[in-house]
């Protein structure tokens, strides 16, 4: 909403502040599926992903946003996954992606972000 007197509002800052990032979920998942830590963000998962053909799904971005504490994004991406497991087959770092998603889906069931 623009301020009535001045005709504009102060833009919000897009700059990410890593000091304030909530990394608890990342740590929790990494404890249960340590292979997640090996991710090199190559995007192999996203390019083979069935869901990504029709939605914004990208495990590469889940992996990133989880580390940055952007849980809204993580939840939204994770909800698109159909658990087909193709990503797990192509991952060059042999991350059990399917398991990571299952853990995330469990985490988010009943929790609204």
């Amino acid at each position: 909403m623009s301020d009535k007197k001045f005709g504009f509002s102060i833009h919000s800052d897009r700059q990410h502040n890593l000091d304030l990032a909530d990394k608890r979920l990342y740590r929790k998942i990494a404890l249960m599926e340590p292979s997640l830590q090996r991710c090199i963000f190559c995007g192999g998962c996203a390019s083979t992903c069935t869901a990504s053909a029709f939605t914004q799904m990208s495990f590469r971005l889940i992996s990133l946003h989880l580390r940055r504490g952007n849980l809204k994004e993580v939840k939204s991406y994770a909800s698109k996954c159909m658990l087909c497991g193709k990503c797990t087959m192509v991952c060059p770092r042999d991350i059990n992606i399917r398991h990571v998603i299952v853990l995330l889906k469990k985490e988010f069931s009943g929790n609204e972000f």
Partner: protein
Amino acid sequence: MNFVCNTDMTERLKKKVLIIGAGIAGLEAAVQLMNLNYDVEVIEKENFYGGHVKQWFKTFPDFQDTKPLIDLIAGKPDNLNIHFGSVPGFAEEQNGIFHVITDKNLHIHADAVLISTGFELFDAHRKEEYGYGIFNHVITNADLESFFQNGFPETGKLSLRFGFIHCVGSRDAKAGNLYCSKVCCATAVKQAIEVRQHFPDSEVYCFYMDMRMFGKQYEELFQQAQEKYGIHFVRARLSEVNQNFDQSLLIKVEDTLTSKPMKMSLDYIVLMSGMEPSVSSQSIATLFGIALDNEGFIKVSKPFIAENITEKKGLFVAGTATGPKTITETLNDARSAALAVHQYLNSK
């Protein structure tokens, strides 16, 4: 062809090889050439041998102490002839004999000269926006090695946040160095692990543009850093460093994989200064009248097939004087240079 010294040669008057620089390249070449029965003299500008490696705590990827490594190289011949604290001041070649006079007025007549003048670490002061020499806890990879060797300054804090900045002075037109310095990625991973070992409660971030883990066991080391040591890797290049009110350091980067500007506070910033042509290489090139390549390293006569041969007959080069190299590569290069010298002198 048999390269091992033969009896014919031992009976001849020994030919002399002058080696300039007693870093690991010069040392390794000296040892090889002595084994081939040449008379070797080494001049070294510092008062110690081992060069940069001596100032390094441990190697990558296997965390070996550097000291035994240098002793292993230099310790082979007991009679290694090194003139410390000397640099060549004059050089002249006549009929294939090099006449070199050092700044200490030592005259050396050599049948061949091997330049192993190494590299210089990029002077991090030049990246003014990184605040080296301005903010107390902005240090370089070399400073960190010396902390490992001599102890860390008291911080009064246990859970320290470290940020390793790759490509400092490398891949940077503003710094005048467009090339990749090659060893810094692996060094950063090694040092990041050492920091985690040294400060178990610390949090460590590496800011990289590309992880160039090209060598044997390097990628494994990278993976270990992520998994075993929980080191975070962020694809970003440092844009600037500022100091927060609480004296911690504030960095600004772009989190390029999410396309967002990002800031974070750190307790220590470690700048991975890259390898630059050494000043000694440049002055020696002038002295002997040989050319430098575009980057300022000593120019080799033919890439691939004559990497140790300069454009001047009888003048050879080994190690990082021709470009960034790992320890393994430097030692191999030194052996290759020794062979090139041997072939030259043998056919002279």
